[in-house]
């Protein structure tokens, strides 16, 4: 294969995943959390595609397409939730939404 080895792609994927994780953990706006979640998913997708290339089989690409579809569905529901929250004049702050506190 020409260009960098699969290993380099995997490192990029790992970095993307951890960046997304950091965003999920640190940011307070649900919108940004959703965006960070997208980054995590994309990191996973990159790893899948890289392994697919490495093994010479397309199963990893199939998996990545399924992940994409699921991510899209999840975004639909997440955004619907955010819109519903906004309609109810709730604060769009993940820390303030704690009625499920034990």
């Amino acid at each position, binding site marked *: 294969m020409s260009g960098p080895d699969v290993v380099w792609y995997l490192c990029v994927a790992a970095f993307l995943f951890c960046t997304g994780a950091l965003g999920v953990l640190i940011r307070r706006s649900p919108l940004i959390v959703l965006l960070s979640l997208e980054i995590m998913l994309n990191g996973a997708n990159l790893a899948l595609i890289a392994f697919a290339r490495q093994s010479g089989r397309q199963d990893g690409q199939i998996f990545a397409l399924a992940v994409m579809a699921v991510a899209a569905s999840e975004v639909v529901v997440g955004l619907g939730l955010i819109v519903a929250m906004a309609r109810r004049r709730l604060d769009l702050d993940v820390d303030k939404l704690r009625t499920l506190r*034990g």
Partner: protein
Amino acid sequence: MIAAAWICLFAPLGAAIAITLLGQRLMRRGAGYLATTSVGMSFVAALVSFAGLLGDSPDDRSHPSTLWRWLTAGSLHFDLRILVDPLSVFMMLVVAGVGFLIVWYSIGYMDGDDEERRYFAYMALFVFSMLLLVQGGNLLLLLAGWGLVGLSSYLLIGFWHERPSAIAAAKKAFVMNAIGDATMAIALFLLIQRTGSLDFEAVFPRAGSLGGWAANLIALGLLGGAVAKSAQLPLQTWLPDAMEGPTPVSALIHAATMVTAGVYLIVRTHALFEVAPRVEELAAGLGAATLLVAGLIALVQTDIKRVIAYSTMSQIGYMFLGVGVGAYANGMFHLMTHAFFKALLFMAAGIVIHALAGEQDLRKMGGLRRFLPRTYWAFLVGALALAGVPPFAGFFSKDSILAAALAHGWYGQILWVVGMVGAFLTGLYTFRMLFMAFWGEPSAFAREHFHALKRDVVGISLAVPVGVLAVLAAFGGWIQFAGIWTPVSDWLEPVAPALVDASSLQEAASSVIAVVLGIAGIGAAWWIYAARRAEAPRSLPLLERKFYFDELYDALFYRPSVLAARGLLALVERPLVFGSVRGISEAIRSLGSETRTLQTGLVRSYALAIAATVAVVTLVFVVVR
């Protein structure tokens, strides 16, 4: 005949169950009729059994009958088995007959009480238990009946349960009886170990093969039970307190039948006592001591029922004396006559108490002869029978016991002297009671509170049984005249052959001296209480405090147990049991509330937890693999 015996046993039980199940649907007096009829049926059935036995030849009069195998334990087995023989039929007749009269009397006495039904259910239960005791064909059923009569006694003493004194008396009776039950159980254990059975036919022939100390222990255990049940020294303190129960209860349970169960036990198991002669003599000695102590205490009692209760204790002492020296038939004969006149005395006293609206204090009574003439005559008959004046019933039975004691050697002669002193005391305290209550001028109290009996169902049920018993107390002793005419002894001979046979001289001497002493006692009572020619001597504190038995037992048993219980509560139960339970619950609760702080409700902290866990798990996997 066998079927009649089973009917006799189960009829009262059927009544008790029926009254319990019918509950409020049954009229209150209906419960009384039901109970009375069932005991009446028992009496008729007992008569049938008696007639059946009469038809057999004297040597062939033992008929066991088994319903089913009740318990099996390895090689041991116990059956639901009754024995129809002269002794059990004798007791059946006494229990069912006197029981019938007393339950009939209760219809009138307990009329108007709110809990009449419960009373009659308990009375029927008691009659069943007593019949089970006397009809049982093995010692296990006897013990079962023993325990059940103890239970019925507890239930009936504490019948008026709103009274704390009644509850306390019921508990006292039950606890003291339980001591006797425990000693009896130990005796039965030993018997099972030695002979492998508890059936009468299996155990008694083998009595000779028991070792020396085993035989003594067994006899002692049985004696312990008899002493507790019959309120003899040293387990006698419960009987006076048991007068808290209604008067018919005192008549039936604590005079005529239950307290005589101890005497029956000794006669039935006489084979076991005869191989432990010291214990048998101990029984006679206890009986003699009791009759003396009880007679002395009765002299200073002011409650009419308590005088009669102590007199019961004393008379049972005579019975123990009789069976202790081996005069079994004489003891049983006295049991029968005592049932007649003691029940009579109690029931007549009950009429007096009813007429005076519940008053029992002799000092408040007086001159009731005028208000209750027929009751007075019935009471007089009973008192004369009790004092042993011929031709009334007590004379025939009591004197034959004393004669038998005389024939028993030097020990018996000492007992004879005690018995004679007792005869004097008996006359004294009995007529003290009679004169205080019935003679003299009517007291102010009597005038105020007296109300006569009406001639209705209540009145009839109170009067007729008393009348019947008066007749029996008067003429019932004519069944046996010592030495000369002995149907009772002959009847019981196959079952419990007498060990001693008093000579005619001893019989005559005992009779004469006893009658003289009895009349002397009556005379002394008349001197002091009726004619008022002398002042009653100031009573000793010893007598008034009942020889300090209650105080002794309190200090010896009750206080140490309370101390031990308190100590255990403070040292063991509170710290260990409560503490550990509370500790566990506190620990779990605190664990829960600490875990609760994890539920922050913040999505971010949950996500952080997931991320941290993933990091750790990945590390673990990397290191391990």
